[in-house]
């Protein structure tokens, strides 16, 4: 009894290692992932986190607009880096684990325009936050959100499916 179970476990372990080997082979067909993919994801993470920091401040009873201005400054710096993060051959269609659609390279002008919208909206947020008008800052959050959505709708994989 004990022996047959031991054999079962060995068979399962052997099967698992074969499957693992198969997995290893399929992922190497497109070559190593370009480092720029992780770097740009990190950059978008900065944009996402700074936007959360801004919205987080505005949920408070007395938002600290200095924090908002700092976050908007970091957001703006990250937004300016976007165009350098999309070299040819790094789309989802090239076989990498990325949400970057080939549309980015098919419509470069539109992509640049979408990028500029975020650069401008974040620059505007710095000005508004430094101006000290909480209501104006709060109203501008939606404008930044629209630039996120605008670009995601066209150039990023729809992962709501």
């Amino acid at each position, binding site marked *: *009894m004990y022996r047959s179970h031991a054999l079962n476990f060995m068979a399962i372990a052997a099967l698992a290692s074969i499957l693992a080997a198969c997995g290893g082979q399929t992922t190497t067909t497109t070559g190593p992932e370009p480092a720029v993919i992780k770097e740009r994801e990190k950059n978008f993470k900065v944009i996402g986190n700074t936007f959360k920091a801004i919205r987080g401040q505005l949920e408070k009873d007395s938002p600290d607009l200095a924090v908002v201005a700092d976050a908007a400054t970091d957001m703006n710096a990250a937004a300016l880096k976007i165009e350098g993060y999309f070299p040819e051959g790094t789309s989802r269609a090239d076989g990498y684990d990325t*949400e970057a659609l080939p549309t980015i390279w098919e419509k470069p002008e539109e992509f640049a325009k979408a990028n500029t919208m975020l650069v401008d909206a974040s620059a505007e947020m710095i000005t508004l936050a430094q101006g000290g008008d909480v209501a104006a800052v709060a109203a501008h959050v939606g404008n930044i*959100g629209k630039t996120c959505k605008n670009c995601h709708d066209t150039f990023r*994989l729809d992962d709501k499916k």
Partner: protein
Amino acid sequence: MSDARTIRVWDWPLRLTHWGFAVLIPFSWWAAENSHWAWHERSGLTLLGLLVFRIIWGFIGPRTARFSQFVHGPSKVIAYLKGARILGADAIGHNPLGAWSVVALLAVMLVQVGMGLFAGDPYDGLTGPLNSLVGVMTADMLTEWHETFFWAVAGMVALHLAAIAFYAVAKRNNLVAPMITGKRVVDMPVEGITPPSLPKVALAAAVSAGVTIWIGLGAPPLT
């Protein structure tokens, strides 16, 4: 001593719930890893429904499903670990230690599903149905915890599987077959469970579906 005979130990709704967990936990993880967020949400909400059902069933189900029948204090757990045989009605169903494993499994699943309800960012993909009820920073924190806490769930599942392997190998007791068929062979003087009453199944299913749909809609006011 009675002769060896086959008796019912697990009712069918309990088994269905169990295998639902077994399928949907790995599926939810896979869907999240591969950015199939709508499937991740559907799977999570289904898990919520199964959890609510299992908890209700823990009060109105047949005796091997009832918390009051299988959850015991530390003295019984220690006695069981020292090798005491369990007699009477509790001779089938969860043992005193396994009972706490069930409670822990249900608890980690509830915590995990609960955090998922608030997860996400409305400006960045799909959000859990209760996301708008908390602030953006709270949602962000819960999203990160939800991601990390999966490993607590996976750890409990691993422990569960290790225990099943231990019973199979060391104790020569196949726990998997009864969870599939609902039956096992015993030579102890113990009665099997009675089949679950359909009105009770319908009641538990209706309540759990209702709660899940309500939460799935974002917990709108009921009046």
